């Protein structure tokens, strides 16, 4: 369970989040809101990339302030820009990079990488240079590199924003099929069909916390 108690966050004297208290236990949680409403900061709180200025965030009882390392092993994070997430020059190497410190042997790592690439339809590109992939394939590669670490929760910050329709549906279908719990920040509201719970952020606060249809209606009214 992810738990936030009276969480607030400020960059310098610009407050971006205030009074956020939540317990997230659902399999699919959506996060929507205008640009600058605090969504991205909220997402980064969940794996300790950002530590709150006030209040505390715990994942399965571990505080992000002191147990960042354990938490990042449980909570995978997918960013908007696929290019910035790909660290090594070729596809297979980048996926293998995630397992560097896993203690597995070279052969075990190679086997897991082959498996993962097959699952993500990237086998044909194993030795290809990552910059030759399409945007959607790059995002799949980023997800493969995260999911090979077998996190129990996946946080995605607008993973489809930079992708065209086909690539975006490729990524969203994959997200829908995952056994992991997913927290999805997005502007693509249709991706939230079938979600268990959707949070609407406005000026750093959660202003609506409801089922997708209610939350999306609230968001639409807010944007008028």
């Amino acid at each position, binding site marked *: 369970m992810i738990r936030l108690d009276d969480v607030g966050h400020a960059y310098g004297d610009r407050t971006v989040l205030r009074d956020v208290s939540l317990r997230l236990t659902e399999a699919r949680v959506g996060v929507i809101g205008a640009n600058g409403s605090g969504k991205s900061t909220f997402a980064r709180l969940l794996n300790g990339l950002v530590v709150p200025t006030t209040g505390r965030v715990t994942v399965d009882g571990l505080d992000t302030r002191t147990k960042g390392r354990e938490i990042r092993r449980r909570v995978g994070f997918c960013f908007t820009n696929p290019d910035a997430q790909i660290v090594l*020059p070729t596809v297979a190497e980048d996926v293998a990079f995630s397992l560097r410190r896993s203690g597995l042997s070279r052969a075990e790592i190679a086997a897991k990488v082959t498996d993962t690439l097959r699952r993500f339809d990237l086998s044909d590109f194993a030795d290809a240079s990552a910059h030759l992939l399409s945007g959607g394939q790059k995002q799949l590669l980023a997800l493969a590199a995260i999911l090979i670490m077998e996190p129990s929760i996946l946080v995605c910050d607008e993973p489809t924003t930079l992708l065209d329709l086909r690539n975006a549906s490729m990524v969203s279908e994959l997200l829908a099929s995952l056994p992991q719990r997913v927290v999805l920040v997005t502007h693509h509201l249709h991706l939230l069909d079938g979600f268990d719970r959707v949070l609407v952020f406005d000026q750093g606060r959660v202003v609506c916390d409801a089922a997708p249809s209610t939350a999306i209606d609230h968001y639409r009214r807010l944007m008028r």
Partner: protein
Amino acid sequence: MSALGVYLPGDSPLHRAPAGAKLLGLTLAEAGAVLLPGPWSVGAALAVVAGLYAFARVPFRVAWAQTRPILLIALLVGGFQMFGAGVDRALVVAGQLVLSVSLAGLVTLTTRSADLLDVIERGCRPLRFVGVDGARVALVLALAIRAVPVVAALTQEVREAQRARGVTGGLTAFAVPLLVRTLRYADNLGEALAARGVDD
């Protein structure tokens, strides 16, 4: 396509040779190249390198893409030397340049970067007593290789944005937005590394 030699999958003996041996061989060959006495020996060495490319079954197109940028520089440097030091010296210097770069290119084309990084990591191990973290050195090199196509794409973006707004001249008008984008990319990359557990 690729600006920098990126691994070209294959199973020639050069591909299968251990990365450490290739790096050591490269170092020795580069040192040897500097000692070559005259144009004939440089020419012979170039022929040997061309033979090695063929032996590794590198397609001509890839080999050419690898060598073309340095040919231009070699022409310039050689031309300059011709006036200062004579034709022989010019041929030797230009040939040595092409020789060194194409040899290094051959190593990167036939070696996975992960294997190169392993060697660098192991090679840096003795330096840990003076506080050098080999894994980190290797990671920095990997990021540099990966950043080449990314920054090339950013350059393209800035050019297009400028053309769209009808701005053309000026180095600062070009350099500033490129720098800003590159720094933003660096920021995002840092976050992604942290999320993937680097530095934990």
